[in-house]
């Protein structure tokens, strides 16, 4: 048996980026042993047992030599069981059971079962993309990951069922259905039956309108109301009001969900906008991303979709503070001891809160039982970075019985989505690619071009309602979106007035409360 060093590539996920890991195997004379070097973590070390059993159970010989597998570059931390397949293939090539040239230009990734079958890995979409960027000839991925990997990797991606299947593919004894995936076609046939529809929501016209404005201008939204008013139900309907994702957006979202390991086995693409509703006990790392090697948090899992924070005042202040960067930049940089990573986090923030800890501060009938000062202190937790970025504030009152029971068809999401789409088109037609919710105060004022009457109204409002400069900018941004919904080039008085209705209302009653 000639002694050779066999090698092939394997893609590694580093935060949100990818890197090439060179997997080399050398067989040296000496007592039989198996070592893995190159900064491997515990899961990589355990590859020795899986690879040995996998090889044996697929009827390959385990070389009775000193086996050294090296994962290069040595400074990069290798994590997870995904190097099982490349190590096994390199051993086969080094020991002459597979011709070494079959591995030329090949990348492989996958966890081995003890029987030699393959298990899925996380981040296959980005790995397929990596193979294309690095001009690899082929990339072998577990069959369950093949659909997502093909989104970008196309026909260079081969789905593998087992170790022997991998060898058969490499030696050309078998061909895999390696074909490009048409993302647009996948999206066209997406199943939207699971997306909640506005048709099912009774009453709450003001909140419905706020959802529409939020969707049209990508304005973050805060709903305040007593428990049971339907805040969560309303928030769940927001993703369905946003224009459907295009292929590029869908790939971005799928990449994040793939890296986080949230795709269903065999799922190719996340076709509908994500809706993430983390519980208020979530840690800062869970919300914005973190972990020993950085993994995406809820803000990134909600990328291109909706992040819903129910009971927003109950979230840890530090967690809410972490929302500042995502809200401003649409991405989040996570710096940990081991590495730093930047994840996309362009989400629409929707918060819901009770007016006070007991939830009844607003109820005209039942009296609130909170001690004085508690409701203010409670709402105060939201102030600062988050409330500064919330453009729309809306009250969601508890419905009376006739409102809940009353009949009459409610407007379906489809109709609202069409209006939203038209507003987005109109905004682009004005020559403004950026949604109004993301405009700076200056740009918003410039884009609004208020009519004289609107200008007068806004000036009076600053005076009479005591609007701060930031609050004023929020009103202008919302007014611009209302004008877009109306297909009006300039912001009119009624747009300005309606925008004022969504302003933050606090402090005005601070004395009496």
């Amino acid at each position, binding site marked *: 048996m000639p002694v050779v060093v066999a090698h092939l590539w394997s893609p590694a996920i580093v935060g949100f980026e990818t890197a090439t890991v060179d997997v080399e195997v050398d067989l040296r004379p000496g007592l039989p042993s198996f070592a893995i070097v190159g900064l491997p973590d515990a899961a990589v070390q355990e590859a020795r047992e899986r690879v040995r059993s996998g090889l044996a159970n697929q009827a390959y010989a385990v070389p009775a030599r000193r086996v050294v597998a090296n994962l290069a570059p040595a400074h990069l931390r290798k994590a997870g069981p995904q190097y099982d397949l490349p190590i096994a293939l390199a051993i086969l090539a080094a020991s002459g059971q597979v011709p070494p040239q079959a591995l030329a230009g090949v990348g492989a990734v996958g966890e081995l079962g003890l029987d030699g079958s393959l298990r899925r890995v996380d981040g296959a979409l980005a790995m397929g993309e990596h193979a294309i960027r690095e001009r690899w000839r082929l990339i072998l991925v577990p069959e369950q990951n093949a659909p997502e990997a093909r989104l970008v990797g196309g026909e260079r991606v081969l789905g593998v069922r087992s170790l022997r299947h991998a060898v058969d593919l490499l030696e050309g004894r078998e061909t895999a259905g390696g074909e490009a995936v048409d993302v647009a076609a996948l999206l066209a046939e997406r199943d939207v039956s699971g997306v909640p529809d506005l048709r099912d929501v009774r009453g709450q016209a003001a909140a419905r309108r706020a959802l529409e404005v939020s969707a049209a201008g990508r304005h973050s939204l805060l709903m305040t109301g007593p428990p049971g008013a339907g805040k969560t139900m309303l928030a769940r309907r927001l993703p369905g009001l946003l224009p459907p994702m295009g292929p590029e957006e869908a790939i971005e979202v799928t990449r994040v969900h793939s890296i986080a390991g949230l795709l269903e086995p065999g799922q190719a693409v996340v076709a509908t906008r994500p809706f993430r509703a983390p519980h208020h006990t979530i840690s800062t790392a869970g919300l914005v991303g973190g972990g020993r090697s950085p993994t995406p948090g809820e803000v990134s899992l909600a990328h291109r979709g909706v992040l819903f924070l129910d009971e927003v005042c109950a979230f840890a202040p530090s967690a809410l503070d972490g929302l500042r960067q995502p809200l401003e930049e649409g991405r989040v940089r996570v710096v940990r001891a081991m590495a730093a990573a930047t994840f996309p986090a362009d989400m629409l923030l929707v918060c819901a809160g009770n007016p006070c800890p007991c939830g009844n501060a607003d109820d005209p009938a039942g009296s609130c039982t909170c001690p004085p000062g508690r409701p203010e202190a409670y709402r105060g937790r939201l102030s600062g970075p988050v409330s500064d970025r919330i453009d729309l504030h809306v*009250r969601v009152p508890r419905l009376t019985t006739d409102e809940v029971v009353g009949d009459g068809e409610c407007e379906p999401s489809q109709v609202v989505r069409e209006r939203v789409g038209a507003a987005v088109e109109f905004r682009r037609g004005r020559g403004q690619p950026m949604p109004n919710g993301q405009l700076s105060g200056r740009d918003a004022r410039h884009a609004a071009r208020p009519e004289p009457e609107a200008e007068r109204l806004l000036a009076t409002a600053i005076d009479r309602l005591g609007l701060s400069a930031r609050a004023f900018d929020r009103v202008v941004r919302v007014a611009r979106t209302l004008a877009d919904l109306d297909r009006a080039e300039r912001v009119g008085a009624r747009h300005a007035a309606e925008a004022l209705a969504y302003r933050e209302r606090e402090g005005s009653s601070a004395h*009496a409360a």
Partner: protein
Amino acid sequence: MSGAAPPAAAASDRYLRLADQAVPARLTHLPDPPPGLFVRSADLDGVLAAIRQAPVVAVVGTRRATRAGLDFTRRLSSELAARGAVVVSGLALGVDAAAHAGALEGGGRTVAVLASGVDRPSPVRNAGLAAGILERGGGLVSEYPAGTEAARWRFPARNRIIAALAHAVVVVEAPERSGSLITTDIALDMGRAVMAVPGPPWGRTSRGCNALIRAGAAVCEGAEDVADELPGLDWAQAPGSGGSAHRPVEGTAGRVLAALAVEPLTADELAESTRTGTADVLSALAQLEVEGQVTEAAGGRYRATA
């Protein structure tokens, strides 16, 4: 003198002995009158003259008031102030604070009787309100010298001064065992008018008021009732009776205003009752709000101010 509380720019202090001409004689009707009063005001003579000459109405109630109760208190005090009354209260949280704030909104003088020195109005959360009272020609009054800290045991004593200064005591919301009822007891002993705002029988904060009414207190449903209870005092012409400052409103705004004149409504209810789109209703509401014809009440409801 302590610099803890920021004194209003031009506010000055004065100590008035009970025998002083500036002190209203009503105070001497107390069985245990204080030897004198410390008064802080930006307009000492003005506020003392007002206490002697204008109707003085104490508006008191629980610290733990309902939103609806607070809204009513503000409206009541604002109307009383607009009718020329001096609103007296104790600067406490809840009804007291709403009473002072409402009086300021109504453009009137209001007097806070403290259980601490006039240089350290308490609670601290109402320091801004205290500054507002001074700024607008009102006064802070105490029988304790500067530097005295507030203490719970001083509250009943403070309440007797509120009762003594007022021509009438109005209790807005009070549970069964409320400090406000100490004020009304003293007021009754001194022969002052005692009025109570009736509340729903299921409300914790209605018990005290309803008990007062059962015991013979007059019902107060607004400033009009107080004026009727205190005839012969120097009431100003009720505002609004001669030409409103608000211009008549037409279109959606007019319909919204008409609907709100009946009862406070949410935007949804307004859209329903005026048969107008939500966007138009919200737009009309905000315009009316900017013009000061409508304000937001509890629970996302709006009400007409006029």
